[in-house]
């Protein structure tokens, strides 16, 4: 077989294949629920209900989506330039670490300047962590997939070391966790009386900013050019390495903000289980959004909904919560295939 590009794919084709991909995902989900001895329709219903069925559920989904918007944007920005940053997890922790370092009494400032400085420092920390792999890539040709992945493991060990050592909360009853943030370093709630913090607002603003950068600035144009064909971009006079460094700053910075938002907005301190893989899930979020920054918001909400809904379904119906990961992985693989088939026709030789 071979693939033949289609000049003008029709609407049926452009919508049909993604719809089939989603339908197959739902069928697989139902089959898994039946395997676990549960009624498939009831299971799917419980997932939807657990994600958006009540005010509490919906807020939980929005809270879970917040870090995913940041890490999804981080991945989307990097992948657009074909910079394979799989290290958002470590960059998130770098941002969280800086938040705790600066927000537990180091600076006795009022809330607004304190939060601004901490947010910037968290971005910088995430960015710096990605600079290493990028410099290794541009200078020595080391594949950044492996280096960013390995740094995730190193970073978690660094955090573990600090939480059991200098950062350990003396009032923490022996648990490896940091001291709580001072009040001024906590992100306030978005609306009075709603359990949703300003991190969510910051995430939405970040998505808009990234969208503006990508569509309205020279850097956005350069990032796209480098991603499409680095050699051609170099030939056209675009400083490819410098563009990659800028991309890394943006990407690492966004992941750093995820750590800031989780610590300052939600948790109030740093623990080793701050992120249940938000950095890795950000890859799915970005891919489902086709790397589009505004799409990232929607896909983060969808992914967060699947996770929150599955947690609640699992408690009620007894289907293991890992069904969420299976559904998302299936959706991801089927969706990239479906999107290919909207543009190409399979021809027999």
């Amino acid at each position, binding site marked *: *077989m*071979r*693939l033949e590009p289609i000049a003008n794919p029709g609407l049926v084709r452009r919508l049909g294949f993604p719809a089939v991909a989603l339908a197959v995902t739902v069928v697989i989900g139902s089959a*898994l629920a039946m*395997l*676990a001895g549960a009624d498939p329709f009831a299971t799917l219903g419980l997932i939807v209900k657990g994600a958006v069925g009540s005010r509490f559920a919906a807020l939980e989904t929005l809270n879970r989506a917040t870090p995913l918007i940041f890490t999804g944007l981080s991945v989307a920005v990097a992948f657009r330039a074909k910079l*394979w940053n*799989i290290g958002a997890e470590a960059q998130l922790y770098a941002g969280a670490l800086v938040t705790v370092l600066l927000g537990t009494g180091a600076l006795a400032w009022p809330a607004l300047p304190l939060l601004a400085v901490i947010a910037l420092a968290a971005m910088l920390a995430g960015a710096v962590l990605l600079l290493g792999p990028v410099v*290794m890539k541009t200078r*020595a*040709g*080391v*594949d950044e*997939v*492996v*280096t960013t*992945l*390995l*740094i995730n*493991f*190193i970073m978690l*060990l*660094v955090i*573990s*070391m600090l939480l*059991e*050592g200098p950062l350990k909360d003396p009032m923490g009853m022996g648990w490896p966790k940091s001291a709580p943030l001072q009040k001024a370093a906590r992100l306030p709630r978005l609306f009075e009386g709603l359990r949703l913090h300003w991190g969510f607002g910051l995430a939405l603003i970040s998505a808009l900013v990234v969208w503006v950068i990508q569509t309205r600035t020279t850097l956005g144009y350069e990032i796209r050019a480098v991603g499409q064909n680095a050699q051609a971009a170099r030939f056209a006079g675009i400083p490819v390495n410098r563009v990659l460094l800028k991309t890394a700053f943006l990407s690492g910075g966004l992941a750093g903000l995820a750590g800031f938002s989780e610590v300052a907005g939600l948790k109030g301190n740093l623990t080793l289980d701050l992120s249940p893989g938000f950095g*890795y899930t950000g*890859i*799915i979020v970005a*891919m489902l959004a086709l790397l589009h920054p505004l799409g990232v918001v929607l896909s983060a909400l969808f992914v967060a909904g699947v996770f929150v809904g599955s947690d609640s379904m699992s408690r009620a119906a*007894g289907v*293991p919560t*890992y*069904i969420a*990961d*299976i559904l*998302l*992985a*299936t959706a*991801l*693989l089927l969706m*990239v*295939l479906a999107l*290919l088939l909207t543009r190409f026709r399979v021809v027999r*030789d």
Partner: protein
Amino acid sequence: MEIFDILVSASFWAAMVRIASPLIFATMGELICERAGVLNLGIEGIMVIGAFAGWMTVYAGFGLWAGVAVAMLAGMAFGALHGVLSVPFGLSQHVVGLGVTLLATSVAYFAYRLALPEVTSPPKIVPFQPFEVPILSQIPLVGPAFFAQTPMTYLAFAVVAVVALVLYRTPLGLALMAAGENPASVAAQGLSVTAIRMGAVIVGSGLMAVGGAFLTISAFSSFFFEMVNGRGWICIALVVFGGWKPGKALLGALLFAGFDAAQVRMQQTPLGAEVPYQVFLMMPYILSILALIVMSRRASVPAALMVPFNKGER
């Protein structure tokens, strides 16, 4: 001088080879894939599914070798999925690989929870026992390291020999390497690049899964969540470190495992009491990165790695 004491202890050398064994299987698997032109980032998840499938088979009452076979088949199934998406359809190997890792990992965890919903401590099986080769196992240091291991470790070394032989001494191996260097030349000879690459990804994934199974049915006796713990990613670094050559990759795996065995023992020394244990645990990852930097300059990456091949396209 603790380091010297560690280096002359038989248990250190035995541990080195034991720790290297799963890495050897999986590194050979990844090497085959990459030599044919496909970066297989599914490796981490395929090792998890292999660890689970092998263990579950034995736990269900079948033999240890049946466990190895089932693990391999499970790995090949996910390899086939990776292959179909990344070879004929030519989708991004990064996305497909990470997707396969997530899928294989979550399928393993889901199936484990389904099969054993109630357990608090993971149940055990009777794993492979060491087999002492007569006479040879009595040689100081070398004996315990290479001739008093479980059958799966011997199998790992045999796999390296077979992979090297097939790659360099058979037409199939030459065609496979050509598919990763210059696929158009393979197609010009009337061979199917798609078939060769698919075969490489499927067989390679089978080996990765056997590497995972080593953890549950040879090294340990239970299946734990997170037990693969980045070993797959390390194998990708080992392929680069070995310059895409089986012999050098084997050396890399042994070297890496040696550092790992040493760091565990260093934790028990007076130095280990001073330094946080996390510093020792991060050494293997840091070493992998350093090795990548040192080796990448002279490494000869397969020219068509990550380049999809669509016949009739120039």
